[in-house]
């Protein structure tokens, strides 16, 4: 900021910079931007609050419902893979404001994995806020250049005979992975199946298990 800026009070006294204790630099930047945008009338504090409220109210449970329905109903799966927004509508789920949502299916021959190398594009309406690692520079760069090594770090050892397809969501499409239904789940109903579908499995960095792994 230059010395010629308009200022509501006179600088005739020394003081420490007026800060927010312990606030990270990125948060300070966002706060400054928000203040400017409010001042210019681009957003209101209420609209920002509503946006944050909406985002944190979303959860991967919605995406899991789509996947579980696709596991038990092959015709629904076809519709989900053809048009994920319309399929979400069928279950009364909101696919969000992104122009297009695409569901991709993992099979014995193909494993899909999603990244946004340019920022953090993510199907937030169906999965909730993205995990911190999804937004991190190491994931964003390594997921495209050495995805098998990244998968291995997540505990997924992909067979060399399985094609690994990385989807870089660079523009107006948000991708949701439909993971493979785990073996040994024939007796489970749709609700029990949905409980097995994790957030990470819908990003494509994990595979659902018949039972949650127990920590040693």
């Amino acid at each position, binding site marked *: 900021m230059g010395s010629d800026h308009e200022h509501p009070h006179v600088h005739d006294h020394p003081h420490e910079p007026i800060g927010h204790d312990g606030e990270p630099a990125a948060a300070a930047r966002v706060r400054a931007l928000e203040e400017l945008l409010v001042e210019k009338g681009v957003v209101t504090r209420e609209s920002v609050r509503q946006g944050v409220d909406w985002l944190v109210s979303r959860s991967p449970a919605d995406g899991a419902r789509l996947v579980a329905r696709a596991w038990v109903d092959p015709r629904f799966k076809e519709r989900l893979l053809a048009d994920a927004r319309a399929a979400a509508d069928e279950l009364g789920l909101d696919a969000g404001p992104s122009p297009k949502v695409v569901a991709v299916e993992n099979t014995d021959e193909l494993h899909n994995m999603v990244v946004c190398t340019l920022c953090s594009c993510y199907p937030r309406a169906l999965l909730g806020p993205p995990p911190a690692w999804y937004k991190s520079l190491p994931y964003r760069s390594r997921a495209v250049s050495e995805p098998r090594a990244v998968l291995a770090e997540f505990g997924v050892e992909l067979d060399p005979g399985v094609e690994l397809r990385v989807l870089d969501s660079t*523009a107006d499409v948000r991708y949701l992975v439909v993971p493979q239904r785990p073996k040994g789940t024939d007796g489970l109903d749709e609700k029990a199946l949905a409980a097995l579908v994790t957030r990470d499995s819908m990003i494509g960095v994990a595979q659902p298990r018949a039972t949650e792994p127990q920590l040693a």
Partner: protein
Amino acid sequence: MRFGPGQRVRVASRSHAGHCRTPVYLRGKTGTVACVHGSFTNPETRAYDSDGLPEQPLYGVVFVQHDVWPAYAGPSEDSLVVDVFEHWLEEA
């Protein structure tokens, strides 16, 4: 639409000042159109107080990983799908 599924395309190797949704790692790389997503506003102008019109066709383009990263360590079948706007694509 200038391109259709199955067509070979190359991402322009030009540079771009300002906001742009074509990753630098793909510039000059050749792939195959997998699908046409439709047309969407242009992020390169929309980022600068414009309505982003006219809309630009957006393609899902599939690349062979070994074509993108010469030192790629995985199998030759591994692929990368990236959404690229038409004005960044050339016939290959």
